[in-house]
């Protein structure tokens, strides 16, 4: 198995340039990534499905258009031919969509998500569907019904979650770009622990149509990449109004790519959130965070401290609102119309019992835990105390953000309190698992955009640390402007991208070709 190392290590922006200059073909680029998947995904397990034939067909179509030249070639999107992986929570025609759950095993969507339509319109070959915690419920991808994804930096560690598959695929050079979804940090926290970039756009900035809902008022689709510019490029493809999503913002999309390309921090006020660092944060995380602050200060930014006193209630409120909405959103998975159907082993064959048996067999423990929590929180007599109070907290968090953004242009914090932990370490301690999202949840509660980028490696374990930037709603461009500057300052320090320090996944392993064979058939595994 040969690998085209040069191609897979290029950023999406660099690939787009080479494709436009006809230095490489889209088929070569796509094949290079398919080969990489075949070579390393047996270990990483980022993909649940590999979409070889369709990806190569789209790539060939792009090559044909470019070769023919003329208006059609001129009109090709800048990212045409640049391959991408899609989180398996987002529905796609022609490939299975499982949401990481047994209850949807084998289900094929009859329609494409809006973001997938936009990828197709841009003629980006879709490499496959990436692993996730079941229905995006988790922070480690260990809750996938199809087995965990592993962190390319250390295969014994988690890649974060729920979008561990997308982050790991990008970190392992299996894809230059991926789509994620972020309900409480599912794009940003995996980005932090895998040394990649992930963005949760402003709520309503990207259509949710076709993203299987966990918590409708918190979910948001966003880009996953290795560079800030690449996220901006992808964000520009998927963003903008969609009449099929009522919560989609009507605003025209800002020029996010220009923001990432120009980059600017001089004279900007960057606010440290008092409540989102210090106690509870790993020392190595804190150190890298402080380093980033120093670099920004040196580049001319003014660092101020802001206080968001209600953030301490965010996690608790999140774990009422999210399960409440999830309990209702997941009610449709009942075995009546699609997906798994399990008949009760004994007793009467009533519809209630078939639904019960199906849901008992089809959902994993974490999903059941959240459905039960949410059902309870919405029940008569508890609604005001739980769901009602949580909504009030949400308003308080929004006010905290308003006050903070009155003092600062963007806010900054570590993305996650720790680096990647070991597989299994927190699996039986849901509360410890939930704490991973303490710094990412406030953005979802307020609908503001957030970006995580690599901040270096923690001293104590040599694992990636993420830096989170937060901007006011509809000001996603600020994240790219500041993120691009911080990224270039950090890379200048490191002497190149952080991922160059990641271990090679192909060095002297005997079983990679076996894994590659299993994968080349493109089935779920």
């Amino acid at each position, binding site marked *: 198995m040969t690998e085209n190392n040069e191609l897979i290590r290029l950023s999406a922006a660099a690939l787009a340039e080479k494709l436009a200059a006809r230095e490489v073909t889209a088929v070569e680029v796509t094949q290079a990534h398919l080969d990489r998947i075949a070579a390393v995904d047996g270990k990483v397990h980022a993909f649940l499905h590999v979409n070889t034939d369709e990806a190569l067909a789209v790539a060939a179509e792009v090559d044909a258009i470019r070769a023919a030249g003329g208006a059609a070639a001129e009109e090709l999107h800048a990212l045409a031919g640049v391959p991408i992986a899609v989180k398996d929570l*987002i*529905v796609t025609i022609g490939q299975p*969509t499982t*949401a990481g759950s047994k209850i*949807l095993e084998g*289900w094929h*969507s*009859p*329609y494409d*998500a809006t973001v997938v339509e936009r990828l197709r319109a841009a003629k980006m070959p879709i490499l496959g569907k990436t692993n996730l915690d079941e229905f995006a419920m988790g922070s480690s991808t260990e809750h996938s019904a199809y087995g965990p994804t592993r962190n390319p930096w250390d295969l014994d560690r988690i890649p974060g979650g729920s979008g561990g598959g997308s982050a790991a695929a990008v970190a392992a050079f299996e894809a230059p770009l991926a789509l994620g979804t972020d309900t409480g940090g599912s794009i940003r926290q995996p980005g932090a622990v895998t040394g990649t970039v992930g963005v949760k756009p402003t709520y309503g900035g990207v259509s*949710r*149509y*076709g*993203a*299987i*809902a966990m*918590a*409708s*008022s918190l979910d948001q689709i966003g880009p996953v990449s290795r560079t800030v510019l690449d996220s901006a490029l992808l964000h520009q493809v998927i963003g903008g109004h969609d*009449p*099929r*999503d*009522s*919560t989609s913002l009507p605003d025209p999309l800002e020029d996010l790519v220009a923001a990432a390309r120009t980059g600017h921090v001089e004279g900007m006020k960057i606010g440290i959130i008092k409540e989102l660092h210090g106690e509870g944060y790993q020392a190595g995380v804190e150190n890298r965070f402080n380093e980033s602050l120093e670099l920004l200060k040196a580049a001319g930014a003014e660092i101020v401290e802001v206080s968001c006193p209600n953030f301490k209630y965010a996690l608790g409120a999140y774990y009422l609102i999210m399960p*409440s*909405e999830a*309990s*209702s959103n997941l*009610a*449709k*998975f*009942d075995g*009546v*119309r*699609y997906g798994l159907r399990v008949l009760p082993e004994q007793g009467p064959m009533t*519809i*209630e019992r078939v*639904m019960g048996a199906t849901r008992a067999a089809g959902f994993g423990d974490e999903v059941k835990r959240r459905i039960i929590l949410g*059902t309870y929180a*919405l*029940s*008569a007599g508890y*609604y005001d105390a739980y*769901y009602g109070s949580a909504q009030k907290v949400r308003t308080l968090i929004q006010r905290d953000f308003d006050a903070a953004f009155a003092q600062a242009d963007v806010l900054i914090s570590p993305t996650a309190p720790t680096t990647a932990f070991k597989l299994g370490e927190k699996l039986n301690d849901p509360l410890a698992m939930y704490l991973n999202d303490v710094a990412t949840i406030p953005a979802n509660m307020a609908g503001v955009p957030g970006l995580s980028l690599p901040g270096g490696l923690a001293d104590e374990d040599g694992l990636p640390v993420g830096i989170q930037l937060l901007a006011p709603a509809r000001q996603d461009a600020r994240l790219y402007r500041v993120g691009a500057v911080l990224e270039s300052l950090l890379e200048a320090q490191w002497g190149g991208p952080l991922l160059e320090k990641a271990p090679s996944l192909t060095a002297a392993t005997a079983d990679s070709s076996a894994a590659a064979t299993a994968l080349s058939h493109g089935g779920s595994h």
Partner: protein
Amino acid sequence: MTDATLSFEEAMEKYDPVLGFEVHVELNTKTKMFSSAPNVFGDEPNTNVNEVDLGMPGVLPVVNKTAIESSIKIGLALNCKIAEKCRFARKNYFYPDTPKNFQTSQYDEPIAYDGYLDIELSDGTIFRVEIERAHMEEDAGKLTHMGGATGRIQGAEYSLVDYNRSGVPLVEIVTKPIEGAGSRAPELAKAYVAAVREIVKNLGVSDAKMERGNVRCDANVSLRPHGRERFGIRSETKNVNSLRAVEHAVRYEIQRHAAVLDSGEPVTQETRHWHEDTRTTTSGRAKSDADDYRYFPEPDLVPITASREWVEELRATLPEPPAARRKRLQADWGYSELEFRDVVNAGVMDEIEETIAAGATPTVARKWWMGEIVGRAKNADVDPGQLGVKPATIVELNKMVEDGKINNKMASEVLDGVLAGEGTPAEIVEKRGLAVVSDDAPLLEAIDAALAAQPDVADKIRGGKVQAIGAIVGGVMKATRGQADAGRVRELILQRLGVEG
């Protein structure tokens, strides 16, 4: 099992009924409440659906703006206040007629609230029914339970699900408790539902066909001893789907409740099923106020805002209210108070209007509907509009009479044939060999006799007062024992007198 009942009169002596209605109106928008699938009745099952109506993973609802407009119009026509801002909510329950296992509805923020409707009873009495709210929601799919004896889910071998109706826009109109109707409660029930049906039809927002389920009524009934303020325990009779059935169901429930209360037992709070064949209800699902649907605001939809300007714009488009319309029609048609009230009470005003629109004169239309069709409907135990008489049939029959091809008696016979499905009036006349004998000689004899008997009338007609002809026609008809064709008689009289008709 048959429930015991008291006679209605005895029930009324002992108890005071309190009513309440939930009327569901299906809107006739082109597309569904939250999806772009067509809103069409009666097609092949599961064809008027898309991924949204089937509750596929990942789908999102989008509100139908026309449905909002229709809902506001209904609210305005019911004299309601229109909420400046309101939200949808999810009503969560597991049942396969709802593909998402929740119904998107409105809970504590209805689009319209605090209205009233003045209901005119058969004797002209006006009874005000207070409207608590009118809210928007989506209809559920249709389940057909197969293999069981009762057609219910209990005992069925399997059930068929048709999601064509799933997502059809509904407005649910809920009354406040209706007190003080007394023994007129059944009549009021029918008149109220008829009024709502008339309003939505008049607004053009619903096809308003009860037999198709466009308008469905759940009737709440409770009894309390006379003089007591506190309401009794209510039953809710579901899906009472004709005006007559509403009247009968309320009447039956009053009689049944009275018997339960007389036996010293409390009434069970439950839903009841109406059975048209036996005109009784049977126990449905136990229903308590503690049913927990875990309502919460629908997070996939943004709040609906109805600016005052928009509401006023919509108000300006409202058609003439039914009461005003009735006044106008009565004047246009030249009916007397009594004639018109009879028409309204018989429930054939719309039908007469359609018949006139099809080409009949008001007199002819009334003659047919009141003289021929209402009686047949009564015998068949259906609403006159549901008997299946088309306006065109009446026009055709009348023309045959006027042309002297058949007489009124024969026309009535032909109508029976049409209703029995024997074909068009012309076909039936042909098949049954019906035709007026067109030998004018005996008629002319009778006409000459009648003219001679009433020379002053004959003079009037000669002088141009053609409307006086009735007296002569009457004389001829009497002489021929009604066998003559009145139209032909009229023609011959005019000919005889040399007057243009």
